[in-house]
């Protein structure tokens, strides 16, 4: 299974719930908004965490492409 993530930076307001759920995939930029750390294929072992990041983002700014 292939997985990538897309971040809608305009709707991101820096809740950082994504980084709490999947710290290997989401970090923070200098103003505390999300920064995608893995822009290509997400390794399989991180898929569950990425799904959690998506389902914890209050702004629904994360899209998973599979």
């Amino acid at each position: 299974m292939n997985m990538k993530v897309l971040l809608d930076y305009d709707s991101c307001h820096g809740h950082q719930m994504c980084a709490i759920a999947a710290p290997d995939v989401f970090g923070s930029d200098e103003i505390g908004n999300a920064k995608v750390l893995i822009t290509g294929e997400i390794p399989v072992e991180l898929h569950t965490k990425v799904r959690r990041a998506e389902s914890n983002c209050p702004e629904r700014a994360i899209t998973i492409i599979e």
Partner: protein
Amino acid sequence: MTDTQKPVTDITTDYDIFAPDFVKNPYPGYTEIRESQCPIAHTERYEGSWLPTRYDDVVAIAQEYETFTSRQILVMPPAAGRSEGPYAAVGAPPITSDPPDHHWHRRLILPVFAPQAVAQYEPGTRDLCNALIDEFIDKGVADAASDYAQHIPVRVISKMLGVPLTMEDEFTDWVRGALENITDAERRIKSFRSIVEYFIGEVQSRAANPREDDFITQLMNTEVEGKKVPIEYVLGVCNLMLVAGIDTTWSAIGSCLWHMAQHPEHRKQLRENPDLWPTAVEELLRVYAPVTMARIVDHDIEFQGCPMKAGDRVLMAFPAANRDPRQFENPDEVILDRQNNRHVAFGSGIHRCAGSNLARLELRVALQTWLERIPEFELIDPSSVTWAGGQVHGPRKCMVKF
């Protein structure tokens, strides 16, 4: 004050956020409204307001900043006299700002609150928590609210601002005057003026004797479009740091300790699975979200069947949204490893809490340090716990023994 003296007959048409029972435990009232025919309740008390209680409604209102403005953000109308005098132009940016100014009002302060920037406060916060516990650990009893929680955020903020820790009691008193005793108009005005006067002094002393790079100095030197930011902005941000950063975080720490005192199984779970901490903090914030904010309706609009008029006040009950069963399974239960948690304790949309990373850090360190030093404790008498409510909900007296 008379508004709180009449008993509430129908909560969907006459709620009273300052009624003693509601202040103590607002959740049954929120549930009653949320599951009624009118999930957006209305009251005539305190010059009138609307109270949406469903997650989707609260979030929609928070997102629609053009219709629901931040001209006023307190759950009560401003005290008479607030718009007079030399300080009238001082707000609490960015929380009281609307676009377009909101953008730069917020953008300028964000870098100091990014996760990587607030991490530097962790060791100091831990030392501070330990020092507070040292004061009472040998006694076997303590007030988890007033001996512990209350002292943590105010000292962290003082350090961040670069002002002396000796101001703690005054800051605490002013913030309570501004947010908790808000049915007392005179105290509100006095608290606001004290805050502004204090920071005018801090700004003047820095102008006369430039300091190392503290937060206030940085603010004073910030330029927007080639011009120094106005003094009202500097004073407003300082005001905001106190009113947004102290009462809120201290209430969250207090509610979490109140919870832990009654749930040995959760203390054990965290002891055995320290990896759970980040998720646990989010879950506790969901269940005990301390903050309710207001919006002012810009123009007449029908929202979910409610005829809202320009100038109406809408209370965004984030604590109610966080317990909506349409969004959260078993919403009243604390599930420390909850997987799906789009909670809005920090709000939603453009005004979403800028200080959330600092708040989380303080909450986690305060709870971790307490549980390490005092792993077993319980409430002395559940009925003697007292609460603040309305704008900010949390325990103010919470005696525990260990």
